Structure formats: structure tokens, C-alpha cells
């Protein structure tokens, strides 16, 4: 039997790595991928907690989170495409028309 804390530690590490990637990477697509990793880390935590509670609720919630991630992917990639068509670049440092 694997202790559930192992899963939680892993999920925390992945969440933190996702957050690092979000700040460190400089193109919009990879930054968005980093967010997907963070969502996945949350899913792992949900499943671990569901198992510790012995209930199915956590598993259902993961369904919803996956749905949300898919919907966000659709809109997000559309926005990134839009930016690319306008600017011919997806580097985040080129997104700087507005300052102040």
C-alpha cells in the first residue's frame, strides 16, 4: 500500500513545477501548457483525497476539472492563434503595447 502522502507530495511538486514553468517560459503556448500541468496536479490531489476519504466525490470532481481544462484549451488556443495572426509571434515579451 503506497502512503497517500506520496501522491500529495508529488502533486505539490508538479503544481510548483507548473508554476515555475509559467513564469520561466516565454512563449504563450508553453505557458498555457504549464497551466495544464497545474490543473493535472490538482486532479492528482483530488484523487488522493478521494481515496483517503473512501468516497467517489473526488473522482467526479476530476471529471469536471478535465472538462474545464478542455474548454479552456479551446478558447485559449483560439486566442493564441488570434495573436499569432496579428503579430506573427507568440513570444510573451512581444505582448507589450500597453504600459503604465
Amino acid at each position, binding site marked *: 500500500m503506497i502512503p497517500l502522502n506520496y501522491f*500529495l507530495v508529488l502533486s505539490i511538486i508538479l*503544481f510548483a513545477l*507548473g508554476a515555475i514553468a*509559467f513564469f520561466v517560459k516565454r512563449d*504563450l503556448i508553453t*505557458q*498555457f501548457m504549464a*497551466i495544464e500541468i*497545474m*490543473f493535472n*496536479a*490538482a486532479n492528482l*490531489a*483530488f484523487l*488522493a*483525497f478521494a481515496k*483517503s*476519504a473512501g*468516497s467517489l*466525490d*473526488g473522482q467526479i*470532481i476530476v471529471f*469536471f*476539472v478535465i472538462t*474545464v481544462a478542455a*474548454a*479552456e484549451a479551446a*478558447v*485559449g488556443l*483560439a*486566442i*493564441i492563434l*488570434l*495573436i499569432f495572426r*496579428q*503579430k506573427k509571434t507568440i513570444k510573451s515579451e512581444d*505582448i*507589450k*503595447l*500597453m504600459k*503604465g
Partner: protein
Amino acid sequence: MNTIYALFPVLIIVAASLLVMILEVFLKREDRSYLAYISLLFLIAAAAGCVKFWDKGYSYFDGNLSLSNLSLFFCFILIIATFLVILISMKYLTLQNANYGEYYVLLLFALSGMIIMVSSSDLIVIFLGLEVLSLSSYALAGLRREDEKSNEAAVKYFLLGSFASAFLVFGIAFLYGATQATAIPSIVEGLQSGSSFGTLGLVGLGLVVIGFGFKVAVVPFHMWTPDVYQGAPTPITAFFSVGPKAVGFAVLLRIFIPYFKDALESQLMFGLLWIIAAITMIAGNLIALRQTNVKRILAYSSIAHAGYLMVAILAQDTQSLVFYLTAYLFMNIGAFAAVIALGKKDHEYLELEDYKGIGFRYPWIGATFAVFLISLAGFPPTGGFLAKFYVFSAAVRQGLVSLVIIGVLASLVSVFYYLRIIIYMYMKEPSYDVEINIDNPSLFLALFLCLYGVLQLGIFPGNILVLISQAVAALPF
């Protein structure tokens, strides 16, 4: 009472957006304003439903959806906000070349997401409602597709918004782990019972605060706000500054007012929110001083207002919070309406320089804008004054004197930048001509309604206060 009628407000809004979506295909481009009229009609129906359900306490789905008076009040003001936003955008869309029928569809979807959020106390439902709101908002921010600023606003809002959502989900996961529940009342109960999961729950709560902190734009989670507000189409900016903020605070209210009842258990969170409130008020107002773009000034002002609203949460006074949100809705949408009024085909006047002499050239717009700015700054006899007064006096009653002093000083600072716009409008000579499109009846209707709202709340707030106290009476929700 468990009845399917409880679904009415959400369903009618969703039905409206689906209907608009279908009709849009059949309508010619120049007939698109009918879509706005249809949306307005449905909004009136939904608002009527909210009025009719008052005091009935309908609920459905085992209480996942519950229309308590407070939820209904929130639904009602959100519907009004959307109503006003549609009024101010009708002409704007044709002038600024963004006349998509989907505009109304997305706006109504966003509204349905907000109604879902305020009428539930289950974090999963709230999260899904928030995502409905956010996804529609991302698209709305980027709706002026040919405008690079609008695109940038969309991408910034999207990236930071989903970053925040990830924090929110992780927080919900921790809260679920700590209390085995996703319904806010059980979560709060679980946290207060002080089990061995205490720290886990506390961390979860912190992550949830970060997630909502982004959505309501409190410092230090505000970096996206000015850029998104500046780049998004102006009516949508008005919508962002009111809608997501109101629902965000509605959720924070549900969580924290019962949670703070147990003063000992909640000390750490209380301190955290205290700091957030203080730096939000200070930073929001100070940075606003340096801005020259009117939309950015209003963006920072909305950040500062989030700080005052946070004070209301800390004062654990639902009544003043709800009153503040109501007043804020009218004055902020009104201010943006005035900004929109100063526009012509393919151009908006957004720089402070453009406002020189507007007060005499366009006396009606100038005067109403001045009233909204005075209200935002918090002078009598406007709603903004009373709202601030209620919040700060509630905070003093709770013994938050130092926070109130910070708040009052910060709002003194805010007077400078609000008055600066008025000074530009009335006391500077225009250096060039500002031509605007004056043929915009729906916008003037919205301006008038907001003006009425601000003055009504400022001079005769009695009726509204009675309603709000009825809404709050049913606590805990």
C-alpha cells in the same frame, strides 16, 4: 422549498443567449440591434423572476441551487449591470467595428455563469460557474479582432485567469481533503472544528483566496487588470469592472463571514486579508495618480474599490458590502458610459488630453461624468459617499480603526485623480476639436439610469437598505 422554478433565472438567460445565437444567422448585419432588444427583453423577464421569487426561498438539486434572498439580490444587480452594459454597447459596436451577434451571446453566457455562482454554495458549482463567466470573458475581451490591444487584453486575461483558476482548483482540492466536503457551510464547519487537518484546510483556503484575488483584482494579484481594462472594448471593460468583482465578493462573503465568526481559529486568514485590503487601497490609489489614460485610471480605481470591499468583508458586515457593490455598479458603469459617449467612428477619446473643455462642449456628458467621478471619490450627496461611510463605520464598530485610517487616507489620495479629470473637463482650454457621435439614445438612457441610481442611493437609500437588510436577514444563506 424544493422546486424546479428555482432554475428559472439561469434557464431564461441561457435560453436568451441560444435564441440570440440562432437569430443572428438569419439577421442582416444592419438589423443586429434587434438582438440587443431581444436580450434586453429576456433580461427584464429574468429580473422580474428574481423579484417574484423574493422571500420564497426556492431551491433545487438538493440545495446546490438555492435562491435565498441574498442570492436573488445579487442576481438582480448582476442582471441590471448586464442590462446597462448592453445599452451602452449597442451603438459602440457599430462605431468601433465589432458588431458581432456573438457579443450578446457571450455576454448572456457570462451572466448565466455569474447567476450560477451567486446562487450556489457548493464550491464545485461555483468553480464551474466561474469558468462559464471566465471563458466568455476571455472571448469578449478579444472581440475587437483587428485591434492589437484588444488581442493583447484577451491573451493576458486568459493566461492569468486560467493561472488563477488552477490555484482555485488546487485550493478546492485541499479544502476537500481537509473537510471531505465541497459545500461552503460544511467546509467552514470542518475548518472551525479544528481537526488535525487544520493546516491543510488553511493552505486550501489561502489558495482559494489567491484564485479569487485574481478575479476581483486585489493587490498583489492585480497585474493583469490595467492592461485588460485598457485593451478590452470599453463596454466590456465596464462589465469586467463590475460583474466578476461582484460575484467574487459574493463568494468570499459566503466563505469568510461565517469563518470569521470564530475569531481564534481564523486569526491567520484575518491577518492575511487585512494586509491585502490595506495594500490594495494604498497601491491602487497611488498608481492611479500616474496614469494619463482614462480607462487605466478607472482600472486602478476599480482595484482600489476592491480594497474597500475587502474592508467590508473584514468588518463582517454583509449589508454594507452589498450596498457598496450596488452603488459601485451604478457609478462605475456610469463612468464608463460617459467615456464611451466620447467616441466617434473608429475612434475613442481615452487620453486625459482629450477631455480638455469637454464639460462646456458637451455639458450633459460632462456633468454626468463629473457626478460619477464625485461618487467614485466618495463625496456626498452620492451613493459612493454613503457606501464608503457604511463600510468604514462598520469597520470601526469591529475595531479595525487602523485599517479605516488607511482607507480614509487612501480615498483622500483618490480624490486627486478623480478631480483631475473634472479639472481637465471644466478648467482647461481645449487644444484641438473633439468630434463625437451624439446620436446614441440607448447610451444616454444608460447614463440617465446610472445617474438616477447613484443619486437615489445617495439621497434616498432607505428602500434599498430595507431590501438589503431583508436579503441579509436569512444569514447564513
